[in-house]
Each structure stands twice: as C-alpha cells, then as structure tokens.
C-alpha cells in the first residue's frame, strides 16, 4: 500500500524520510503482491471463512480434523514470520516480483537479494503446506460431517465455493511446490533447472507457476463470490436463482481454469502456436462467469431488497467484479495482450478482480457475520460511510489506472519519469496516488467501527438478518461445540424466502415441515 507513493518519482516520501531506491521499490512491489495474495486474501477468505463458517453451516461441532487444523494455523503463522523476517535480513527481501521469474530470482547476483529471496520461497512453501492441510479439512468436513437432512444440494453455496477453492488449490499447487524446490536448489546449490546456460529452461518456471497461478486467482475469487451469493440472497429476501446450475457453472469454470494458464505468457517466448488455443479457453471462461453473474442479477430481480451495509458491499463487489472480469477479456485476447501485457492495464485488471473479491467481498462477509462472531452489531451508519468511501476511492484509483495502461505505462517501474511517452501520464499518476491515500484513509471508520462495536455495539440476537442457513440458529457468538443443545436437523434447501403458499417470509433450513403454518 505504501509503494504507490512512487507516483512522485525521486521525491522524499512522507513518513519514510527519503526517496525509495529502485531495488527497494522492486522489493516493495514484490512483497505487496505476495502479502496481499498469500497472506491476506487466502487466510481471510479461505482459511478464516472456511474454519468459522463450514462447521456452523453444515451443522457440525468442529472440523473433521481439528488437530490438523491447528497445525495449519501454526504453520501459517510461522510462514508469516518467515516472510516478515525477510524484511530484516541483509540485502533486503525478495525483489523479483510476486511471480519470482528466474533467472532473475535464481541467482544472487541478478537481484542483489541474498537470503531474502530464500526466505520468500520458504514462506511460500510453508504457506502451501498450511493450505494443503486446511484444504483437506475444508473438503472432508462438508463431505463427512453434515447434519441429518443436509444433503449435498442443500449446502449453502459458500460451502460449495470453499470446497471448490480447496479442490483447485490441492490440484494445482503441486507443480509449483516442485518448482519451488528446484528454485531453491538453483539458488543455493548452483543447479540450473531454470538457467539456459546449464541446459535448463527459464520458461519452465513460468509454466509451473501459472499452472498454479491461474487456479489460484479463482481460489481467491470463489469464497468471496460465495459470500456475495449468501448476502445477496438474504437481503433480496429471495431464493437463489439457479442454485444447482451455479454449482455446475463453477465446476465448468474450475475445469477450464486448468486449461488457461499460458495466457499469462503470451509474449514470454511461448511457442506462438500455443497462444490461440489458450486465448480461446481464456475467453470462453467468461461464459460460466457470465452465467453466475446473470444469476445473481436474476436473484435480485423482483426481490425486496434490504440495503444494509453487507448488502452494499456485496453489490458493490459484484459491480466491480464485472468490471474486472470484462477487462480480463482484453488480456485474454492474445493480440491485444501483445500491447497491454505488463502494463498498468493488467495491474488495473487484477486489482479490480482482487479488490472486489478480497476487500469488497471480504468486508461484506465481515459485516454480515460480525454479529455471529462477536455477538454485537456493527454500526450501520459508519458502515455505509465506509462502503461509499471505499467504493468511490476505489474507482478513482483503478479506473484511471486502465488509462495508464492504454497509454503504455509498464508495471514494476520505479521511476516513470524516465520515459518520454510515460512522462505525459505523470499528472494522472499523481491523481491516482492522491486517490489511493484517500482509499487508505477511508478505512479508518472501518477500523474504529470494527474494534469499537465489540464493546459498544448493539447486542445481536441469534438471527439479526432473518436469514435461513444453519449458522443463525445458534446463539451469537456460538458456544463451544457450536450448538448448546443438539444440532438441528435440516429439512429444506437453503434460501427459502417468500415461498408461495407459506405465510412466513422466510423458512430456516432447520424448521421442520408442517411446523410452519
């Protein structure tokens, strides 16, 4: 977040006291990407939501392997420490981009980074180990510990999404683990898996990385999308449109996501005959996503929309995600990517997708389940201020960023003023920087709201949102073992709102048939 400052090249940075050197800039960008993707998005969206929600939503006392779960949390903590430590070793942290392309990352003399990069690899490896353990839990728990009546097609969508994310992760991370081992050997034992001099191949890493990398972005997307679905359904007071079809659409997207990885490598020296097949699969992936988005819109159609803070965040996230999704089509078209690859257009694309999922989706989830977690409500007024501030500043930061990309500005450059054709874009850069600072500042109401509401928030009832899924049938916060008495059995699909012929507006999954009217 700090590194954005470099819109003012070579000037002193407030609070930092001196200009950032180019090597430090590279390190900041690398660490920003790594931390955001692997240490904010994944733990928040996959691990935290998975651990908290899965048992509550499927009606289980705990995860299937509680001990494995604890282990994964601890390994994650160690991984974070390792990454943090890399800031303090000599010659600084990793500076080869979050994608760590060799040969740059494979030899100390190319970056000047010493142990920082080894620690970076180690941190990632530990992180992967942690999520392997977590992922197994997220898969086995919903398969094996569902309460009576909770058939697979009665699971709330977010549980499906977390399972989907776990499958994608488990099946894609392997090659990168192998690649990370090779990279460590390259750095420390002088091998040359990724160095052309020794018979290796730099492109090999890119393939191994992106074979994981693309499924990985959907690992981040799916849980957030699931949260949005829950919230949109609840606050539209309407059942999800096409519940089963959405699950199938996600499966199709999941399968396709293994067949698109080279779209990150169109101009990387990839065999050019491969580009078009990958381009086609990439663009085709818009069909299942379009399906999901249209289903969300259809869910809102004819609803009775209750505009709470979580709903605003979910809808805002959906809106921004559409934006990020359609800009992905530009990248996905191989000829257009010739021009926009490695420009700010790509940076803007992935912030639109990542920000909408990680932050907007994440905030939506936080505001929605906060009462369940802490037993108190968050302040609605400040929540709305936070939403509108975040949403507007987000647009101010990242919409103009597309224009920078169209102007041809490259990413990962420490000093844009060095190029004539980029120089013209400097005023825009300054504007974006100002907006980014605004974006940061507008998080203040959230922080206060989040912390303050723990003490002064209104006490939350069991089910403040009149929602139907199982987590709302236990006291807030849930006691040890999740339900004080017996676990409720399930009698119907999730999201039964405004069912014709039923006088209640909403039917919890746990309410027995007949007990209704």
């Amino acid at each position, binding site marked *: 977040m700090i590194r954005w400052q470099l819109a003012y090249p070579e000037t002193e940075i407030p609070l930092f006291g001196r200009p950032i*050197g*180019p090597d430090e800039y*590279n390190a900041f960008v690398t660490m920003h990407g790594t931390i955001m993707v692997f240490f904010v998005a994944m733990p928040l969206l996959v691990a935290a939501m998975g651990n908290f929600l899965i048992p509550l939503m499927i009606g289980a006392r705990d995860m299937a392997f509680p001990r494995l779960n604890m282990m994964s949390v601890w390994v994650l903590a160690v991984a974070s420490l390792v990454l943090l430590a890399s800031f303090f070793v000599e010659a600084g942290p990793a*500076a*080869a981009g979050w994608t760590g*392309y060799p040969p*740059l990352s494979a030899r100390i003399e*190319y*970056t000047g980074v010493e142990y920082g990069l080894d620690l970076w690899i180690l941190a990632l490896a530990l992180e992967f180990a942690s999520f392997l353990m977590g992922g197994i839990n997220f898969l086995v728990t919903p398969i094996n510990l569902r309460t009576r009546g909770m058939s697979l097609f009665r699971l709330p969508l977010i549980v499906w999404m977390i399972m989907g994310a776990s499958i994608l992760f488990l099946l894609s991370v392997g090659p990168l683990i192998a690649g990370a081992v090779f990279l460590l050997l390259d750095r420390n034992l002088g091998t040359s898996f990724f*160095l*052309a*001099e020794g018979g290796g*191949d*730099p*492109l090999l890493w890119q393939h191994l990385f992106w074979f994981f990398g693309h499924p990985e972005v959907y690992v981040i997307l799916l849980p957030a999308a699931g949260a949005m679905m829950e919230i949109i359904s609840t606050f539209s*007071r*309407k059942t999800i*449109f096409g519940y089963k*079809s959405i699950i199938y659409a996600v499966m199709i997207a999941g399968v396709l996501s293994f067949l698109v990885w080279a779209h990150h490598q169109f*101009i*990387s*020296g990839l065999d*050019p005959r491969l580009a078009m097949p990958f*381009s*086609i699969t990439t663009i*085709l992936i*818009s*069909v299942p996503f*379009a399906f999901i*988005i*249209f289903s969300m*819109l*259809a869910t809102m*159609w*004819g*609803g009775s*929309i209750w*505009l709470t803070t979580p709903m605003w965040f979910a809808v805002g996230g959906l*809106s921004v995600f*559409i934006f990020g999704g*359609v*800009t992905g*089509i*530009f990248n996905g*078209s191989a*000829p257009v990517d*010739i021009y926009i*690859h*490695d420009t700010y257009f790509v940076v803007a694309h992935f912030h639109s997708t990542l920000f909408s999922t990680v932050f907007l989706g994440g905030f939506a989830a936080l505001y929605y389940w906060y009462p369940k977690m802490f037993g108190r409500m968050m302040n609605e007024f400040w929540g709305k201020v936070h939403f509108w501030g975040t949403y507007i500043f987000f647009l101010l930061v990242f919409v103009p960023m597309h224009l920078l990309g*169209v*102007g041809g500005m*490259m990413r*990962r*450059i420490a*000093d*844009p003023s060095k*190029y004539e*054709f980029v120089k013209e874009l400097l005023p825009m850069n300054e504007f974006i920087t100002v907006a980014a600072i605004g974006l940061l500042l507008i998080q203040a109401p959230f922080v206060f709201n989040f912390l303050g509401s723990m003490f002064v928030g209104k006490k939350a009832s069991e089910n403040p949102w009149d929602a139907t899924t199982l987590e709302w049938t236990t006291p807030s916060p849930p006691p040890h073992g999740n339900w004080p008495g017996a676990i409720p059995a399930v009698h119907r699909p999730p999201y039964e709102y*405004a069912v014709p012929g039923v006088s209640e*507006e909403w039917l919890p999954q746990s309410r027995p048939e007949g007990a209704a009217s």
Partner: protein
Amino acid sequence: MFAWLPENVSTYGGDIDAIFKLIYYVVGVWFVATQVFLVYCLIRFRRRSGNQRSKYLPGNTASQAAWVLIPCALVLVLDLWIDFRGADVWAKVKLSRPTPNLIVRVTGKQFNWIVTYPGPDGKFGTADDKKIDNDLHVPVNQVVRVLLTGEDVIHSFYLPHLRLKQDVVPGREIPAWFEATKTGKYEIPCAELCGFGHSGMKGFLYVHSEADFKAWVRTQWPSAG
C-alpha cells in the same frame, strides 16, 4: 479512452487496435447493460415497506432459466467472434515471417539493449559486425526482423508505438518483426522486471527515411561505400 493510446506507427498496429476496440465495444455494451440492470434492481426492488414480499424464482424451470441461458449463449457467440478475429491478427504479428529487408540482433543485458548489425555482408559473426548500445536505426516502410537474445535474465523488448512486445529469454533466439510507417525517434523500454535497473532500461528506435538510412549506413561502414 483510445485517445490515450500512443500514436501507432506500424503496419499491424492498426489491426491490434481494431481488436482492442472490438472488445471494448462488445464488453462495453455488456458492462453497461449489467450495471444498469443492477442499479435498476436496487432502485426498483428496494424494500419500501416492511412487509413487501419478493417473488419466488428458483430458476429451475426452462422458461425461467432461459432468462439467463440466452444471454449466456450470446456471450458465447461474441467470445468466439473475438477469438476468431483475434486469431488472424495474432497470426500476422507473431506467426508470419515476412521476408526482411534488414536483420538485426538485439541482445538484452542488465540493463542495456545491445544492437548488433550484421554489416554490409549481411552475416553475423563476421568482422564487419557492429555493436551499438541502445540505438536501433531502421529504414521506414521496410520489414525489419529483430532477433532477440538475452544474456542474463528475462527482459522484454517493447515498442509501444509499434504495438510490439516480445520477451527476451536467455537461451533462445526469438524472431520478431515490424514495419514502421513513420519516421521519427521512439523509445524502446524494457517491460519485464529485470532487476534494480529495470526502470530506466531503455533504448531508442530511429526510423529514418530511405535516404537518411543510407546516409547513416555510410557513416557506420565507410569502407563499404
């Protein structure tokens, strides 16, 4: 938005821009349509009174599903359109190898572009080869083939005004080509992170008129006449 594009000065740049615009309009329409629909729903179906009941639309009958499936089919068709139009342009830029009037080798090295001319004999590795740092001189309206090689890490040979970008990978010799349509001096930045000197690694492309290029050649290889 397209006003932001740097001026195009290559033969195929226009084709790339055309695909860019095609996608822009196709997805633009969808983008606007979905956003408008979203906002419309928020306004039209906002809960006004406490007991306003929503419709029950599980989307499990054919007539309901059609509302979503038909637009999806449309998206599919548009996707294929984008793909097929794009495939031609891709083939033109990256797959075809028009016979060049000039061949040069450009080597990426932390943090310079080393431009090697084969000299009058047209062969590399002979005595009249000439190495120039960061300056690439080419004639206008002629096909130029650039053989890209790398010595240390990956760089990316980027000609924003010609809509050309190609990574330079050590261990490979990757041919790229272009035909400039306008004389002038253009920048050649490096577009792939290559170390602390990445920002600022750049060269210049000089596109000369036929006569100017001949003159430049004479200054470089006086003996060859």
